[in-house]
């Protein structure tokens, strides 16, 4: 082969490692993938490191410290294409719940000496700090989608990712709607497809791991769910979760639900 294999670097910021693990969990594809690309930097998998610049940087995690702001800028400067991998990288992830509270109070709850810690008051998505070429949502990401993104990049085409909500995945699986049939609050209608509707398939409501779908009817969604709450504040907690810092979900809690409260 005469063409040089594209170099790929995988980075971790504030996160649980689960999205990187999704790459290592491609048990059937990993060795073929390693043939098609040059894994130049991937600490969780290898001690070997090749110097950049890289063709593709895959970034897991959100930005939660001043040091991470510096690091993410270096990642951008050192890569042709940057992919934000997973809901921490695209929306801040679960740790972005601190953005709605006082992080200093949290630090006092968890640590004996908060003065030893360095952290930012908010946890933010990668795109708030650098230009991101492609975002792949999910907590964790769906490994089939990760493969699709890499294959698309290798072939210089747009990745084929679903634009619809979890509802369509339920229809495809033949699930009866948990909202209609069982009265279980579910934010699947407002959530991007990608997981395969696993929660409704197990008789529970979707809690939004894959972030907001396009064109969500925020008012109608919030008002409907509020009527069926099983405990006070359930709707707000469903939206203020894994993808809680995503703009659409923020709107639902901060605008729609708080307006309902005042009314």
């Amino acid at each position, binding site marked *: 082969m005469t063409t040089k294999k594209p170099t790929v670097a995988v980075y971790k910021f504030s996160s649980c490692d689960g999205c990187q693990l999704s790459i290592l*969990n491609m048990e059937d594809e990993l060795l073929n993938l390693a043939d098609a690309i040059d894994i130049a930097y991937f600490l969780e998998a290898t001690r070997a490191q090749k110097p950049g610049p890289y063709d593709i940087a895959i970034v897991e995690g959100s930005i939660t410290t001043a040091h991470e702001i510096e690091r993410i800028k270096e990642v951008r400067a050192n890569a042709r294409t940057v992919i934000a991998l997973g809901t921490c990288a695209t929306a801040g992830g679960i740790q972005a719940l601190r953005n709605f509270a006082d992080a200093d109070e949290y630090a006092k709850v968890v640590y004996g000496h908060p003065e030893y810690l360095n952290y930012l008051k908010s946890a933010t998505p990668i795109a708030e700090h650098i230009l991101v070429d492609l975002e792949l949502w999910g907590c964790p990401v769906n490994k089939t989608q990760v493969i699709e993104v890499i294959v698309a990049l290798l072939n210089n085409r747009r990745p084929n990712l679903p634009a619809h909500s979890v509802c369509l995945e339920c229809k495809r699986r033949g699930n009866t709607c948990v909202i209609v049939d069982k009265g279980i609050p579910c934010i699947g209608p407002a959530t991007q497809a990608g997981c395969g509707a696993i929660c409704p398939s197990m008789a529970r409501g979707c809690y939004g791991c894959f972030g907001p779908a396009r064109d969500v009817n925020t008012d109608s969604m919030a008002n409907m769910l509020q009527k069926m709450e099983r405990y006070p504040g359930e709707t707000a907690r469903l939206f203020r979760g894994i993808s809680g810092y995503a703009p659409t979900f923020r709107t639902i809690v901060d605008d729609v639900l708080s307006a309902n409260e005042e009314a």
Partner: protein
Amino acid sequence: MKNIEVPALARVEGEGGLYIGLENGKAVEIRLDIYEPPRFFEGFLKDRFLQEVPDITARICGICPVAYQMSAAYALENALGVKISPQARALRRLMYCGEYIESHALHIYMLQAPDLLGKESALELAAEAPEVVKTALRLKKIGNELLKAIGGRSVHPVNVCVGGFYSWPEAKALKALLPDLEWGLNAALDTVKLALTLPYPDLEIDYEFVALHHPDEYGVIEGEIWSSNGRKLSIAEYENGYIEEHVKHSNALHSHTVDGSTYLVGPLARLNLNHEQLMPNAKKALADSGIQLPLKNPYKSLIARGIELVHFYEEAIKLINEYKPTGPAHVELKLKAGEGSGATEAPRGLLYHRYKIDGNGMVQFAKITPPTAQNLPRIEADLFALTPKLISMSEAEATLTAEHLVRSYDPCISCATHFLKLKVEEK
């Protein structure tokens, strides 16, 4: 000896640094610095509804989310005084089998074995011994498939709830895994044989081993917390024996016993304290290995993981053969104010949770003690013990031997590392 600096320790989960200060050829200061940013889980769990807790705590660790779901569920069930059905309990053990299989196969072959085979990664190993790596990937995949069959996906599965499970997985889907699991049991037995041939560095430490012990089964989800020095505590009494504190160089909390000593959790502790409860094939593999217990070499945790891999493949087969779900998958919860603790054995060691909830089921207080927080002081102490051996080595070998020691613990530093820096400095 010249300063040694490794910009990043690979093949661990998390970010940290390692500092070894030397004086006249002796270690005077050793620190495992944890740079992994704090994420404040105990902070934002406050005022969440109890049924959200297993989904939130899973996000502490992508490698062992089931452990975080299980410890949380048991703690909250204890707070409500709820007991899950025997079928749900058996399914929880089966699900834990899946997590042990994927986590141990990953650690044995992809994280630790490259150190013993002189490779940078399993991918590098694949060029030379593709069959070994293919076996490793299949061993790991079967664990992930089992998790998927029960929980919908392997990372952050969605089926565990306080009270049991949201729904029963189909027996057909589980039974379909049996041929793979049978293959896996044999491959795990071969893994133990391979593990016994690897060249482990010499290091014997007189650890205090701590693990969950259950008289009737290999301790994973319920039982007493046993220590090799004789201390036996119920799970509710855990904090009477073990204390967590915040040290300056680390974003992870460090634990010690009430007597102020370090202790070890994880596969060596479990094997040494619970070997009598192993399944028959695992027990035989241990007997055939000729290993004298207690096993005290941290590098040989790999062998303990191998024997556990056999055990969990074997237990998974047994549980699937016995799987007959009847009745509801979860008990209905009656909310009331209360406090409860839960401890289960994550693949890396004991994981303790304690929660206080109010009468509406909202969390008022949360405390989580991950296995790696308990092992960090022990890793530092091991590095002290190792330093005299490092001095006579080449720089590259010393660095690798120290890194390998840290890796052999399978530290889950997402609960605290991903940038471990080794610096040996002559003062």
